[in-house]
Every structure is written in C-alpha cells, then in structure tokens.
C-alpha cells in the first residue's frame, strides 16, 4: 500500500516538478542511423502532449515566421550538453553542432481554445548532415508517428476570417518535400534560426540571444547583424517589413544556392540587386504562374506583378510557395501589395518585337 502510494507520488512529481531529470533527451536517436518511429523515442519533451520541453531543449520564437496555413508553431532547439553553437558569417544562421535537433510542432487551437498538435517536424543534425523527418500526431494526441510520405489531413481549424473555424486540407510534407525548402547548395539546412530573426533587439534577457548566452548555449561573441523586423506590426517601414516577409517565406528557395536558384529571382533580406529582387524582372519558367503579367514585381503596380498573382492563388500550377500552403496568406498578400504599390515605377517602354 505504501509502495503504491510512493509510486503515484513519483508520477505526480514527473509531471509537476522534475521532468527534465527523468526524461533526458535520447542523443542516440538523433545521431544514430535509422528513423525512430515515435516522437517520444527522442525524449525531447518531459510532457509530450503539452509540449513541455525536457532539460536542454530550448523553446524559441522568430521575429518573422513562415506562413503555414495559419498554424500555430512551437519551436524548440536542442544542443547536446557541452557543445557550442557558432554563427554562419554571412547571414547569421546558427551553426548547430552534430547531435543537435530543431523541433517544430504545428497545430491549432481546438474548440475549447486548447492548442492541439497536428504534426511535428524534426531536423536532426547527424554526422553526414541534416535529416528532415515529419511526425504526424496520433489521434489520441499522446504521441506522434513518423510518416516519411507525409499526408493530407482533413481538419477543422480557426483559419477563416477573424479566426472562424473552417474545414480545409492540411498538407504534411513528405521527407523529400522537407528538402524542397531546406536544401541549400544541395544540402539540408535549417532556415529560421538566424541571428537577425532571433534577436528582438532587447538588451536584457528578454532577448533570447542574451538568455541563451547567459545559459551557456551561445558563445559570448555577439556578431552585429541587422535585426529582422516583425512584419505583423507597423514598427518598421513597409519596405523592411515586406523584405522580412519575403526572406522567411520565399528566400529559402529563392536564393543563389536554393531550389529556385535557376529562376534568377533572389528574395533574401540582404539582396541588393533590384532585378534579382524582381523589379522589372521577366519570368523565366513561370509558365501559367505568370498570369499574363510581365514582371515579377512591377513597381507601383501590384496587380501587374507576378509575385502577387502567385501568392494570391492556391492552384498548384500557380501558387507560391509551391509547398506547405493550402490557404492564401491574406495578410502577407496585403503586405506585399502595399509594398509594391509604394515602389516608384519607371515610364513604360513598349517596343515592337518579332
């Protein structure tokens, strides 16, 4: 009887006070060959259904985030004990050591207003590079199961105007499609955790960069990078907010080493060539995605700009991004429309041609 009582107490303790010590991250699951079948196999969470992170797993937020059908995303980073993170010099992408993992859970609030996970995507840093794996949550909401083929889920979620609940098809990318966004120079790489996208500008520990530095996760060097503005506020000029939006939503593909390198359209935050950024840039292989418009961005004329046409469509032959979106990002469209409208145009120069 006493023994039983103690056991129950221990279980309560696990949930309430000391999850970390009792649910360590399984480093071998990250680094060893093979694909663990369950999300729980990794031990990233002390309380998996509620996404309570285990010791050493850091939640983080981004200034500017990718639109994913209005899903709420919970991001976590795991760096093995004693290992150090460094920075990629060019754009401040955190360089996480082998054995690290990035964990991103996608979900929506249910009718009771409680976050309910749909899928968790993992990026595992193994000795031979990063591996992307999608886990779909089981119906009982207790764990998630590997689905390398991804899948489509018919769900009801608050994605309508003003957060109204509506039915739609949510797409979980397959393992290859993960690479469709995460490939850089042919190698899988993280996208979000860039210094400029993590640094909120605060000079105290409310800045996660500083907090991580104090926690010994980041080295003390603090490279000077521009801060990516939040585009969901009006705190920065329209141009900067639009560029931040394009950077996180498009530039993982549209950069010189990305899957859309052949397009010549490069949308990174630091891109300085106007043509590469789309201004008066003619399409190369847009097909019907061009929508009878002449330029990717027609300055001053959003309705004549291919970029907006593609953002404003859900047709697979037209829509951009090509993956990970079943709905239109109305706020993103409005932002880019406002930006293009604000750009000063040249006078038209029509010519006869063969």
């Amino acid at each position: 009887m006493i023994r039983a009582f103690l056991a129950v107490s221990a279980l309560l303790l696990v949930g309430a006070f000391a999850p970390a010590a009792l649910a360590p991250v399984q480093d071998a699951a990250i680094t060893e060959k093979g694909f663990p079948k369950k999300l729980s196999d990794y031990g990233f969470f002390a309380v998996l259904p509620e996404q309570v992170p285990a010791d050493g797993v850091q939640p983080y937020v981004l200034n500017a985030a990718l639109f994913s059908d209005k899903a709420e995303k919970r991001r976590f980073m795991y760096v093995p004990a004693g290992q150090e993170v460094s920075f990629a010099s060019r754009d401040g992408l955190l360089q996480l050591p082998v054995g690290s993992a990035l964990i991103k859970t996608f979900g929506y609030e249910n009718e009771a207003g409680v976050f309910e996970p749909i899928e968790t995507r993992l990026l595992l840093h193994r000795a031979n590079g990063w591996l992307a794996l999608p886990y779909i949550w089981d119906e009982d909401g207790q764990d998630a199961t590997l689905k390398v083929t991804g899948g489509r889920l018919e769900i009801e979620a608050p994605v309508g105007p003003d957060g109204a609940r509506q039915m739609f098809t949510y797409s979980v990318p397959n393992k290859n499609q993960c690479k469709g966004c995460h490939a850089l120079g042919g190698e899988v790489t993280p996208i979000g955790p860039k210094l400029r996208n993590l640094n909120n500008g605060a000079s105290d520990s409310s800045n996660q960069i500083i907090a991580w530095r104090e926690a010994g996760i980041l080295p003390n060097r603090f490279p000077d990078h521009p801060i990516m503005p939040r585009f969901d506020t009006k705190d920065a000029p329209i141009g900067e907010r639009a560029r931040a939006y394009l950077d996180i939503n498009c530039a993982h593909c549209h950069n010189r080493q990305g899957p859309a390198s052949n397009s010549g359209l490069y949308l990174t935050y630091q891109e300085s060539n106007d043509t590469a950024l789309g201004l008066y840039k003619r399409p190369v292989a847009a097909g019907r995605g061009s929508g009878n418009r002449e330029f990717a961005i027609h300055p001053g004329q959003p309705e004549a700009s291919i970029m907006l046409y593609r953002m404003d469509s859900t047709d697979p032959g037209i829509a951009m991004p090509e993956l990970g979106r079943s709905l239109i990002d109305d706020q993103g469209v409005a932002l880019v429309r406002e930006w293009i409208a604000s750009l000063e145009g040249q006078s038209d120069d029509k010519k006869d041609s063969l």
Partner: protein
Amino acid sequence: MKKGNRVAMLGAITLALTAAPAIAETHNIAAGADAQEKLQEAMILAEPGDEIVLAEGTYALTDGLSLDVDNVTVRGAGADKTILDFANQQGSGEGLLVTSDNVVLRDFTVRDSKGDGIKSKGADNIVYYRLTVEWSGGPKETNGAYGIYPVESENVLVDATTVTGASDAGIYVGQSRNIIVRNNHVTYNVAGIEIENSFNADVYGNLTENNTGGILVFDLPNLPQQGGHDVRIFGNTLRDNNTPNFAPEGNIVASVPAGSGVMIMANRDVEVFGNVFEDHGTANVIIVGYQQPFEDDNYQPLANRIRVGNNSHGKAGYKPGFPEGALLAAAMGGSLPPIIWDGTGEGVVSKDSAPALSLNLSKPDQSLTEAQPAMADFGDANADMTVPAVVMPEAMEAIVKR
C-alpha cells in the same frame, strides 16, 4: 475519434522502417487507391542502384512526386500502358521532381500535371527515355508550362519521348551543359523543343509539328548560367508549326510568332543543318538578338556565328505571325523568304539554297518600323560546321541501347 481539429486523415500510412539491404532492390508498384503513398514511399526509401517498377495501369495521383536518391531507375510498362494521372493533383509545382544524379526515367506517361510534367533540377546524368508527357485537353493556356524540364544539370539525354500540350515548351533544357535531345515527337506545344541558357547541345532526329515554334535556342539575361553556345540542330523534321501562341503573356515564348520553325536568339555558335522544313507561316529559320530592355552587364544579347546549311525548305513566310509582318510580306511581293535574320550579330551565314531576308536592324531592340529589309547576301562567308558533337557518358548511352 477525438473531438478537435482532426477530422480525418487522408491516406498517410505508417511505415515500419528497417535498414535497407546493401544489394539493389526492385520496388514493384501497382495502380490502386494507395498508389500515391506506395510510389512516393518507394521514391524516398529507395537506395542507390534500386529500380522502381510501375506495373501497367492508370495511377490516380493527388500530389506531386519527388525523387532525391541517386542512381535510381523508374520504369513503367510502356508509355501507353503505365499512366501517371495528375488530373486531381493538389500540390507541388510539377508531376514528378527529380533532384538526384544518375536517374533513369523510362516507359511511362505523365498526364495532366498542374504545373510542369517532369522536372529535374541539379540532376546530372539523367536519362528521359520513351516517356510521354501530355495535357489531354489539347493546347490550352491553362496547361502546365514544360513537359520535360531538366535544369541546372550536366549530361542530359532526352530520347524517344512524346510531349503534347505544354503551354511553354514541350522539352525545355535550361541552364545545363552537355545535352542530347533526339528522336522525340513534340506536338501542340508553344515551343516544341527549347534549349535555353545552355552549353553544348545536339538536337537531332526529332519530329516537331503543330507547335507554335518548332525548336528554339534562346539565351536570357539575369540568370546564373548565360551565354548559350555550341548548339547543333540537325536532321530534324519541322512541319506546320503554326498553332496560335497560347502561352501566358509575359513568358518569353509568348513572343514567338506562330509559324516558326527554328528560332535562335542571343546565342553563339549555333548550327542548323540537314533539317527538313515544311510549311511555316512566318519562317523556317529565324535568327534574332534579344529585344527586351535588360540590366545585366554580363549579358550578350546578339546572335553570333550562326551557321545554316543543307536544309530542305518547304513553303514558308505566307502568314507572318509578328507585328509588321503583313506589311513586310507585302513589300516583299506577298510572302517572306524562309529564313529571316534581324541583321544584328556577327558571323551569321546561310548556305541554304532558299533565300534569306535581313531586316538590317542596327540593334536587336530597334523598332521594326525602322527595318530596311533586303535579301541577305552572305557572300563568301564561311559556313563550315565546326561545333563539335555532344557525347554522352557511355553508361547513359548503354541504357537506351538495352
């Protein structure tokens, strides 16, 4: 089922994953309700050396497929027997995307994909063999852009395919090098075959008919690879490429006049010889510079060292498909000669017996209203064909000989 967001799961399956054996494996796939998952699963779990074999049947696919494993063959039972039908495709920009090297695609059909048919990017040593890519509703602006679309690749072999209905190019090779496109049948596309911003391509033995333009060799500015050169177009039959241009406006091929046989724009060292041209309303051969404004110091907009010879010319020039064309034809006595050159660029020469027209423009973007059309006189200019033949790696040639 619990209450909440999740209402139903469409077709995702749980996989029991085990370590793959070291020897090559055959993944046999059949049409059926689970074909999407089974096929995509095979394309993810295949190991180098494996073959994915598609049984006869029509596969109703709901998403684009992708292959990212090197050295894999995807083989159907024949283009008329194994049909990958993308009419209900819900995602992805193409029917099949290949991003790995040493891949062979053969003996199946891709039908009605929402975007491009088959795209391969950064996929070296790729073989497209005895495939069909088609849009079944005929030529329409709403069809996908490219049927067969290798880009940023080295060693590309496209052999014995059939492509119909592409709203841009049936076979489009972009920003690649060492390319052979041969023995294909391309019909009712805007461009039958297009070689763009590419180096070293042989295009031969193809039948291109009823496209807007038969074979295009283009170079465009502001791209990672430009300066297209060393392209040979020989031994092709090009006929009746007079289908009205149905490309969406803005696309560069939307400017291709209906009734074009071969069109060369802003390339160097291109040779057109031994082809049979029949019935093109605008011209059998068009040689021009790039006409749009551009800002790119590294771009060369002229067509230089273009050599034409020993082609057979059927009727041409009776219905010019470009602005000013009718006026120009009237001035020339009712129709245009089979060969048209804008007059810019150096080393352009035709030794064909058919007459050639020069517009005598001073630069490619000069208005046609300022053209001074006259029969081109190439004089004693050298028309010797000197561009070397393209040679594929032997292993790639061996595949199509088997």
